[in-house]
């Protein structure tokens, strides 16, 4: 057992309201400069939708992530990079997204509004490209598919719809049944990062102390392989400096005990950050496991921080007591391991992402169906004065998830490598907690019924109470359990992130480093 610690995250999608505050906080600190305008280290996508960059999940286009080597027993290789492919394609990388796959950054000529001479028509501020400075026709922008569920251009081109039948897709996008949810994304700081493996220069590395994946800007030589290799497209090429950049999990903030900017600013309080201990010896084995057990193998890597054997091994590896303490109180461990509520995004890319998502229940559960006259409704179902019924009745709880507005298949494509049972298990737990709380607060569900529902979902009232508390009542210190900085380890502790605003965020304190000749 080789115990390492990782600062890991949970995003609770049921709470995300899609306000993009996280994206703005991140952009203001790190990517508000030339060459980085188009980058959103943190972005929020509407699902179903094509995302950013367009159709990033479709690896037949971008060739990101790992795949099982054909013919090889329990071996994986990079899909579109690696030693052979990477070096052969070093002059021209055939699978690299170009700027139009993201969007061409633009601003408006606001000065025209002020300096316009008096005339009959109102002056307009024309959009100009932030790259060339010339007027452009805006074809894409950040969050271009925001809230556009059901649209031809975006939602229906979602790569996750691939194995849904046309009828299922049609049912998803019927006007009255239409639903969507938000998917905030940052770098997953994976255990088996494809970007690290693909970098010919060896500029990308994972920090041993906290697992943050970083690009050394002085070593990056713009071979661009990480952009292809990252299946989440979270490594971005700065066209100005000729260097790749990515989310740094605000490590200067973490080292100083602050939550990352995106998490700190989260309005819906959907984000949790905490330490996870994992067994580094089993990473390769987990990443190469069969499709059916991929998720479970990844979760098995995570170790119980209260297990004496794990603690001893962690101390042996030099993990500080404060880090262990943080791991024992980690909200992430609770969501992922104790309650088994959270799943990684697209585990089939085999990078072992360390950002976990609690799947959204709301768009799934709120089924709408035509009201049949004199139909006997469950007594807690709300009866609207309408021909359509917004049905959240608990009587049909287990049935309703199978006939959800969001087909389980779709959710399973996102979070559980197509395993619908695994996805159902999480949704049932979320629903069971709701029923339990309904019993507590509204009182129209009997204790007997609520206990039975909890039991079926594999929870206890105590657990349900804890889930409710951490989901709905959690204060700042409950959501972000950051180990106290170790003075001898912290390299950025004495810095304030405000001071490095507009820099590349990688330690160029004096000025933004200049592009090469």
């Amino acid at each position, binding site marked *: 057992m080789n115990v390492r610690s990782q600062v890991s995250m949970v995003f609770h999608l049921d709470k995300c309201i899609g306000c993009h505050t996280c994206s703005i906080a991140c952009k203001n600190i790190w990517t508000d400069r030339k060459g980085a305008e188009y980058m959103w280290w943190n972005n929020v996508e509407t699902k179903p939708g094509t995302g950013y960059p367009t159709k990033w999940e479709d690896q037949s286009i971008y060739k990101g992530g790992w795949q099982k080597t054909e013919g090889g027993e329990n071996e994986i290789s990079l899909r579109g990079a690696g030693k052979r492919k990477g070096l052969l394609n070093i002059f*021209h*990388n055939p699978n690299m997204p170009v700027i139009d796959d993201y969007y061409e950054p633009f601003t408006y000529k606001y000065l025209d509004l002020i300096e316009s001479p008096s005339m009959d028509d109102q002056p307009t501020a024309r959009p100009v490209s932030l790259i060339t400075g010339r007027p452009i026709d805006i074809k894409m922008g950040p969050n271009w598919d925001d809230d556009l569920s059901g649209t031809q251009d975006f939602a229906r081109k979602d790569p996750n719809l691939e194995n849904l039948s046309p009828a299922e897709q049609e049912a998803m996008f019927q006007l009255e049944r239409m639903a969507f949810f938000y998917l905030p994304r940052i770098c997953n700081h994976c255990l088996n990062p494809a970007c*690290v493996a693909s970098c*010919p*220069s060896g500029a990308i590395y994972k*920090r041993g102390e906290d697992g943050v994946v970083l690009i050394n800007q002085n070593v990056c030589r713009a071979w661009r392989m990480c952009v292809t290799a990252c299946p989440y497209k979270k490594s971005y090429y700065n066209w100005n400096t000729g260097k790749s950049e990515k989310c740094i999990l605000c490590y200067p903030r973490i080292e100083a005990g602050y939550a990352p900017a995106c998490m700190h600013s989260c309005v819906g309080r959907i984000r949790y950050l905490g330490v996870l201990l994992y067994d580094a010896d089993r990473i390769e084995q987990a990443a190469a496991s069969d499709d059916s057990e991929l998720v479970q193998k990844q979760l098995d890597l995570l170790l119980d921080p209260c297990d004496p054997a794990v603690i001893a091994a962690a101390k042996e590896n030099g993990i500080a007591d404060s880090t262990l303490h943080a791991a024992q109180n980690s909200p992430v461990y609770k969501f992922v391991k104790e309650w088994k509520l959270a799943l990684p995004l697209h585990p089939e890319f085999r990078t072992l992402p360390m950002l976990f998502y609690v799947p959204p229940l709301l768009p799934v559960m709120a089924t709408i169906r035509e009201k049949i006259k004199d139909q006997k409704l469950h007594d807690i179902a709300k009866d609207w004065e309408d021909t359509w019924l917004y049905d959240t009745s608990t009587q049909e709880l287990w049935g309703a998830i199978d006939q959800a507005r969001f087909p389980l298949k779709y959710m399973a494509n996102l979070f559980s490598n197509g395993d619908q049972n695994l996805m159902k298990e999480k949704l049932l737990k979320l629903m069971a907690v709701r029923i339990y709380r309904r019993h507590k607060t509204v009182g129209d569900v009997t204790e007997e019924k609520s206990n039975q529902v909890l039991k079926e979902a594999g929870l206890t009232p105590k657990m349900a109470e804890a889930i409710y508390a951490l989901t709905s009542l959690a204060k700042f210190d409950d959501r972000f359990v950051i180990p106290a900085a170790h003075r001898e380890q912290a390299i950025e502790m004495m810095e304030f992130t405000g001071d490095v605003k507009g820099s590349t965020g990688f330690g160029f304190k004096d000025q933004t480093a200049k592009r090469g000749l």
Partner: protein
Amino acid sequence: MNTFFFVIYPYLAFFIFCVGFVYRYKQTGFQVSSLSSQFLESRTLYWGVMLFHWGIMVVFLGHLLAFLFPKGQLLWNTHPIRLILLEVTGFTFGLLVFVGLIFLILRRFISKKVFTVTSKMDFALEFLLLAQVILGCWIAVGYRWGSSWFAADLSPYLWSLVLFQPKIKAVSAMPYVIQFHIIGAFTILLLIPFTRLVHFLVAPFHYIWRPYQRVMWNWDPKKVRSAETVWTVTRPRNN
């Protein structure tokens, strides 16, 4: 005049190349990059970059082999078929470089996005390379057979430079076209540290040998935990 161009200038170029590269790598390591513009324009780049790079690698390898093994070169050329095969190969790849370079230059002017990330040095370098390639192709056609007289006359000259006993008699008598080609070569050598050409000096061959994953500790964790050594550890070089 000849002494300047064929004795002083080569040494000067090599000296500036060495000092310039070390300086640039140490002081402005951030600027050592291939500055790829594929992100802004990918389709034309494919043709330009593939033809140029593969072409120039073969052409450069040809020059290098003739420089390193002049006797072997002459021995190879004793049979006319082998001589013609070699010359045709060299000329073909020279043409590929030329075509690729034309693609690359036109692309810099046509694509507005690429134009904005083009420095004056990039233009200077591209036209210098173009001139050098045109001269090279001209020599290949006009002054046959280059592969033989390069090995017989130019290799000894280059070796005399390497051994610090410059002998420029043969070079001084060469036609201007060839002399310009030689001066151009040293100019390119001189300019390497100051242009995007630095990227080939940091070509990532070490990637072949390193393991895929890289984990780094800012501090040796085992030492940090030990109370006796906690104040004595030095920060390992890892960046």
